[in-house]
């Protein structure tokens, strides 16, 4: 049966209209062990303090909205179970992003970078609808299926020390999504994406810390994707410089 216990939920608060800098506020929340941290936040919002702001939507690790730093680690609020923590839980906005208000971060940098890698299918050849589907074998699908599971929750950006140090870095999710389309047998846009991801601010800022793959709630393994992109970009480089006749 459900066991009720009280936790101290320490939440970072920041209101740009009234606060000079962020502060912490602690709420006492009666929880049942089956709750996740997002439930505790919603309890606060509904019962204790309606001014608390945070993003969430699906409550089932699909939408990628409720990423916070929970006890210093990037987690989805809907996947962080209360029973995995002690009686004191600290919730902060995702690291490396500016704070818009309370737990809500400014994510434009990520969205711009994500869009810059053209994360959509660029068909090798345009076909009229009457020509039917672009077909694919299960083996061809397996090459990239894992990377399609990304929900753009940005936990990997909050975990990546390189992104924290070098804000220009394109980052894990954007590059692994570029890799996802590059690996797709129906796609012909790799050359366009390479211009962005094979740049210095692209994959080459990655020093393979691997934190992105550790925190990914969907087990996408962005670090693995980035290593594969490095190998492929290295082969490209040697082809372009030592065998210029082999390309274009």
């Amino acid at each position, binding site marked *: 049966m459900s066991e009720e216990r009280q936790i101290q939920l320490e939440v970072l608060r920041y209101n740009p209209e009234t606060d000079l800098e962020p502060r912490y506020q602690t709420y006492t929340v009666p929880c049942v062990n089956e709750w996740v941290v997002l439930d505790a936040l919603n309890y606060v919002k509904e019962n204790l303090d309606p001014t608390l702001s945070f993003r969430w939507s699906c409550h089932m690790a699909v939408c990628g909205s409720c990423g916070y730093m929970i006890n210093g680690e990037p987690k989805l609020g809907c996947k962080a179970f209360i029973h995995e923590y002690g009686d004191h839980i600290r919730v902060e906005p995702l690291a490396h992003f500016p704070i818009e208000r309370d737990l809500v971060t400014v994510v434009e940098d990520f969205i711009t970078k994500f869009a810059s890698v053209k994360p959509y299918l660029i068909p090798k050849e345009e076909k009229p609808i009457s020509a039917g589907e672009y077909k694919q074998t299960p083996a061809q699908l397996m090459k990239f299926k894992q990377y399609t599971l990304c929900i753009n929750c940005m936990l990997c950006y909050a975990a990546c*020390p390189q992104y924290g*140090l070098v804000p220009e870095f394109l980052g894990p999710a954007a590059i692994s999504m570029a890799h996802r389309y590059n690996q797709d047998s129906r796609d012909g846009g790799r050359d366009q994406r*390479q*211009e*962005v991801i*094979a*740049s*210095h*601010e*692209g994959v*080459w800022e990655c*020093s393979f*810390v691997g934190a992105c793959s550790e925190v990914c709630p969907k087990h996408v393994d962005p670090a693995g994707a980035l290593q594969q992109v*490095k*190998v492929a*970009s*290295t082969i*490209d*480089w*040697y082809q372009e410089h030592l065998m210029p006749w082999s390309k274009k």
Partner: protein
Amino acid sequence: MAKSNKPIVWGLFAAGGTVTAFITPALVLLTLFAAMRFAPTMFTYESIHAFAANWLGKVIIFGVITLSLWHAAHRFRVTLYDFGVRADLVVATILYIIAAIGTISAFFSLLSIH
């Protein structure tokens, strides 16, 4: 955005990483045994000398030494960067020069073994 030229050093780093991951632990163990005066006949001075005198042996030793050097240089560069040393160009130049000197001296030392 221009494409980066980092693949030159990263290629050597990756190849070196693969080589060192497999060979360095074995070399450390064998060196330890040799230091303890326990050298199986295959690893006596004479047989290792004969190995280094052989052309294929030279190529293998050259590959292991130089790839390890380039791997170490690049790894150290990235480590320094992670520790907050932001003079990347200076660090990279110094480390890669060391690796290049090691490469050249390995080449000539191996040539001198007959």
